[in-house]
């Protein structure tokens, strides 16, 4: 090994084949070559296998195993070639500082501040006008980009299709009668004509079989024959509050585990939901069908700025 550190600049004489830096990492290159070769052969066969699997078997698993073996075989082969059989060095390259000289920096700054400054100072009016024009352009071009996308909310977030007299129907459009549910039963219902509508989804629960309405204090007239109806949209993030635990009389939202107490007016008693599920006032008509006696008295679902 020479005493002086290697010169990094200027032309170098050609290296000899037996230069130690050009030697492979492997102690036994022939063995390493065999390993790499076997891997590549396996890889080659894997790809052939993929072709066969694709045309003949058409199974996801066969395609995956053959393709995987092909890719891994070839990959390991090439990697082994690079790692064990190619010049291992170590080699070095010098870093060059990328910052410019002080003079170059000053020149750049001067080009902007002095040449540019001169132009702007002479023609302040034009500079101002261009600035005003491009600012206006920037702002007005946002209009189509944003405003065209959708309607303004208006009052739609406060509205549902439930109104006085709306018949409760199932997702199939079948009218719900007072005998449909056993005690402890639940059903997702919609206002007739709006099945599947997201804001209109209501969970109907039968809490007792007595004619005496069972509902939260102050709203006893909102239920009928042991039935109560709540908006099924979680007041946290709008997921359907789809889990009903009869024993504890709780409605659980599977998304973020908000738990609502059914007997107390679906007030949240646990989790991130901030408000009770809005209740839908219902009654039963003379033919035994359940109907709403009005819409919701508030916006359903998660909170938003305009909500009072």
């Amino acid at each position: 090994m020479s005493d002086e550190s290697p010169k990094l600049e200027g032309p170098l004489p050609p290296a000899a084949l037996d230069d130690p830096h050009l030697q492979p990492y492997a102690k036994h290159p022939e063995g390493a070559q065999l390993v790499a070769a076997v891997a590549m052969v396996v890889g080659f066969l894997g790809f052939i296998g993929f072709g066969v699997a694709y045309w003949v078997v058409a199974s996801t698993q066969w395609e995956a195993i053959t393709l995987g073996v092909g890719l891994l075989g070839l990959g390991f082969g090439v990697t082994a070639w690079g790692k064990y059989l190619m010049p291992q060095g170590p080699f070095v390259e010098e870093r060059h500082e990328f910052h410019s000289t002080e003079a170059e920096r000053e020149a750049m700054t001067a080009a902007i501040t002095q040449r540019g400054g001169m132009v702007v100072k002479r023609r302040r009016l034009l500079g101002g006008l261009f600035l005003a024009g491009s600012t206006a352009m920037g702002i007005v071009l946002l209009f189509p980009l944003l405003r065209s996308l959708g309607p303004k909310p208006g009052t739609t977030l406060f509205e549902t299709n439930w109104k006085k007299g709306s018949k409760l129907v199932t997702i199939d459009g079948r009218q719900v009668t007072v005998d449909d549910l056993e005690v402890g039963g639940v059903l997702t219902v919609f206002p007739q004509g709006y099945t599947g509508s997201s804001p209109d989804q209501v969970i109907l629960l039968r809490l007792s079989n007595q004619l005496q309405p069972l509902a939260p204090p102050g709203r006893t007239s909102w239920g009928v024959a042991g039935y109560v109806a709540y908006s099924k949209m979680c007041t946290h993030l709008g997921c359907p509050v789809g889990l009903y635990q009869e024993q504890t009389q709780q409605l659980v939202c599977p998304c973020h585990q908000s738990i609502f107490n059914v007997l107390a007016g679906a007030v949240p008693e646990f989790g991130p939901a901030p408000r009770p599920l809005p209740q839908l006032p219902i009654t039963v008509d003379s033919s035994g069908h359940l109907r709403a006696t009005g819409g919701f008295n508030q916006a359903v679902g998660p909170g938003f700025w305009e909500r009072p």
Partner: protein
Amino acid sequence: MIDETIDGTLRWVDDRLGVAKGGRTFLDKIFPDHWSFMLGEIALYSFVVLLATGVFLSLYYIPSAHEVVYHGTYRPLDGQRVSEAYASSVGLSFDVRSGLLMRQAHHWAADIFLGSIAVHMARVFFTGAFRKPREFNWIVGVTMLILGIVNGFLGYSLPDDLVSGTGIRIAYSIIESIPLVGSYLAFFVFGGNYPGSGVILARFFIIHVLIVPLILLGLLGAHLGLLVKQKHTQFPGKGKTEHNVVGSPMFPTFMAKTTGFLFIVTGVIFLLGGFAQINPIWQFGQYEPYQISYAVQPDWYMGWLDGALRIMPSWEWVGWGHTIPLEVFLPAVIFPGLIFNILLVWPFIETRHTKDLAYHNLLDRPRDRPKRTAAGAAMLMLLGMTFFASSTDVMANFFQLPLKSVLWFFRFAVVLAPIITYFLTYKICLEMRAAEGIGKRKRALIVERSTTGEYVTVESEPRPGDGSEELEAIPVPTFIDLVPPELATGEGVRRVMR
């Protein structure tokens, strides 16, 4: 013959573009040999797989909420009314050859893409590779991470299955929670009150397959371009200084290794795609806004946000005729905004703290920067805790614990665990720094028993990597005398005795 062809072609191109000088320098580019430098490569190659499989999927997927009747191979769905998006997603899984493999490989590649970015980023962070002059590349990297998460969410939302549809619903409510403009933004993005005017899948689709990938490609070019211009960092070691890079050359050694690695990463992804089922949308069923299933968890990289939403107390603010859903806005908008902004400006936070304005091309050992390491560990713990909090329901079931206890545990753990982690990591770093001989590769000790029954300990033979036997690093030789050594006598042939 082949040599002449290459020479001729190169001259032709060089006459017109002048590529020879820069091209040679590029082939000579040195890549430090350290395993942790391949983490970014995993991200790069899974991105390649994402592009390739994504193109395949885009040929079959239809981004439409239009209702159709499913008639395909998957019998349980036969005759059901589903959206065109869902029907085409199930269709490309079962009725297009290799479709399921491609779809699952795409999904796995996305999860691996973001996972490798996260680990790569941790490596860059803990070794201080983001310091001057590489602040730009750190910012580019964090931006790619954010875009990757966004695109992952958009992507898994496309099939219109029950799980992803629930995710879209949640996204709508998160937008809605933004004070002042939330409901307007939500209406604009979705084209109306949820579920909107049926445009959301088409919009997600074009953002997912065109807009974000385009930006990602641009940023990726910048990321790699900066890497070439600024050259790699390296760990301290023999012959390694702030002013050089020691390792393997771009051509041929690194090129061979990295090409092999591209194949390996791709191979692993396709094996996962074929054997590890992921996102079985046919089991979830078509999304309906009034339906839901148990254990609704997002993909892993969204878990921390979902967890933050779960453990947040119900602090809705109401007053002056307005509502601010802080129980959503804080964990889903402010929290990630804060995290990403801390990440983006971290290099500048650190410079401000250390007043260190020097160039840094040699990497730190994490223990030598106890405060940074402790801060990073605390951040990982915070994100880890919110991540695990996204499975409170599953944990409660699995461990047979009350849901409330699990939730309360995480409410405390999310706050306390990062603080404890900070001080613990800080202390460990200090202890490790104080330990003698740490960080040096130790030689094995061999215990031998002599014929007289005496035990002696001897040091084993030095091994490669000990640092003792390594060669001096030299510049990559451009010209190699291909004449076998025993015949080589020419002038100027550099010969270093072995």
